[in-house]
């Protein structure tokens, strides 16, 4: 690691940040899903909870693991819906945010350079292949995590604010949410990066990479994450364990991506 050229890497990351910020085609889809998921949905749930006069959730709650169901069942009926959805069920769904943002940015960072015909210029610069690869990964991973975390803060404010007349206390974040935010979301972002690095190597444009990744591979990942929802809800150690598996797969994919990220291989596809 001591051989890293951090100045060069910082320059690449800063370039990618600046370019992304100015690209509506990248920014808009990147913000739309988090807005719907983290603002519109909790807002709607809060309003429904405020209008409802006692939704019977016993059937739903009885199917949840006891560790989660018990504290919710202890709440008054009007609070149960909002705590169940905002406090627990949305948490795994939230992982779509880092996954999607990281994927969009990775497609732009790798396949996008080919599409804009700027890749060759980068290859002729005095930056080591690994440094360029890690800078590109960081340039997409850091914004993905930042957007996820900022999105979560906005979500917490909206969820607690709208539901305040019903719940009368701050109920988000839960411990499960904290695991999602601190441990799983960065891991899922890295996993999305790992997939898109591979996909981008074969795609000629960012759009093609997004289509390949979005149509085939990422839904499979999301399905796997969704399948693990039950596991995540079971207990904290299992949620942490699932996160460890996500990180392990992500690091494996990124390491393989780094090994294949050579000037010779990239230039041969130009």
């Amino acid at each position, binding site marked *: 690691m001591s051989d890293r*050229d951090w*100045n*060069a890497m*910082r*320059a*690449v990351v*800063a*370039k990618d940040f*600046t*370019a992304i910020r*100015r*690209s509506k085609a990248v920014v808009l889809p990147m913000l739309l899903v988090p807005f719907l998921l983290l603002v519109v949905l909790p807002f709607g749930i809060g309003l429904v909870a405020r209008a409802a006069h006692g939704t019977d959730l016993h059937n739903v709650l009885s199917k949840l693991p006891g560790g989660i169901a018990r504290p919710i069942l202890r709440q008054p009926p009007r609070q149960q819906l909002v705590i169940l959805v905002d406090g627990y069920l949305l948490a795994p769904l939230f992982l779509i945010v880092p996954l999607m943002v990281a994927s969009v940015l990775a497609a732009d960072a790798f396949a996008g350079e080919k599409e*804009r*015909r*700027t*890749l*060759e*210029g*980068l*290859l*002729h*610069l*005095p*930056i*080591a292949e690994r440094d360029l690869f890690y800078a590109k990964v960081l340039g997409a991973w850091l914004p993905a995590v930042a957007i996820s975390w900022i999105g979560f803060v906005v979500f917490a404010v909206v969820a607690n604010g709208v539901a305040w007349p019903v719940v009368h206390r701050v109920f988000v974040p839960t411990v499960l949410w904290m695991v999602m935010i601190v441990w799983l979301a960065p891991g899922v972002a890295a996993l999305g990066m790992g997939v898109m690095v591979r996909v981008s190597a074969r795609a000629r444009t960012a759009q093609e990479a997004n289509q390949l990744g979005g149509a085939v591979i990422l839904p499979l990942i999301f399905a796997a994450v969704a399948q693990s929802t039950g596991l995540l809800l079971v207990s904290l150690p299992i949620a942490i364990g699932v996160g460890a598996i996500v990180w392990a797969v992500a690091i494996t994919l990124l390491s393989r991506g780094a090994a294949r990220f050579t*000037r*010779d291989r990239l*230039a*041969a596809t130009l």
Partner: protein
Amino acid sequence: MHPASSIEATDLARRFGTAWALDGLNLDAEPGEVIALLGPNGAGKTTTVRILDGVLDPDRGHSRVLGLDPRTQGTELRRRTGVLTEAGGLDDRLTLTENLVVHARIRGIPIDEARRRAGEMLERFGMSARADRAAQGLSTGERKRVSLARALLHKPEVLFLDEPTSGLDPAATRDVLDVIAGLADEQGATVVLCTHFLAEAARLCRRVAILEAGRLLAFGEPSRLAADLWTGLPVELDMGGMADDGRIERIRQVRGVAAAQPTGQGATVVVESRDVIPGVVAAAVTGETRLFSVIPRPPGLEDVYFALTGRSGVEV
């Protein structure tokens, strides 16, 4: 490697799939020399640049640029080289200054110095008025100028220019060629010019490498390449009409005449040297014959190129 060489390549070859993009390239360049890689699209010019700058690995052969092996010392080498790629490679979303500063920063130039140099280079290439605007919307000529400014920002010792004037209007072409000529003269930079414009190569380069389908057809000074191809000096006689057989025969009998053929305006005669020309004129101007002009026409780069590539040829 010859101690005076900036670039030396021996038997360089590179294959993509089953096709050889480059097959057995040998060339060298001295410090401050401008050499041309001449050839049509697909000749192997860009592949050569990529190998010499350590971006592509050769499948065969070896090279040294500035005394460094591009294959193993690529990062160190690329600090001292500059490349203008055919596409230019500007990021449309960044301003012109940002496009230059990013590359300077990656090259290790401190930010303040990078900004100062970017400003200077954009001024030099007449782009300072647009320095803070995005690259999107620049014309082809403007893009080339900004890209060239970026390639020169760090004062490279070797500069690779891939089709630097393609898509430019005549005035912009002249400006870019003036800059390239100045680089070698003023900065002592070695320039490798990839082009398919013969006039550019003829104007700027003492030596040219002619490539076709990945193979090096010839490398050297055009006059020497011509001497290898043809003996004698072609001379065109303008007689206002085709020379008749008798006159052609008289010319052929002049000592030192290697060949004589009638043309639509008179005749083309190949002589051993300039000293033979007065004898040719004497043989041609007899009786009613009018002779309007006698023009020695030594084969130029264009003749050499077309003769070697077989696309056309001079009949001498």
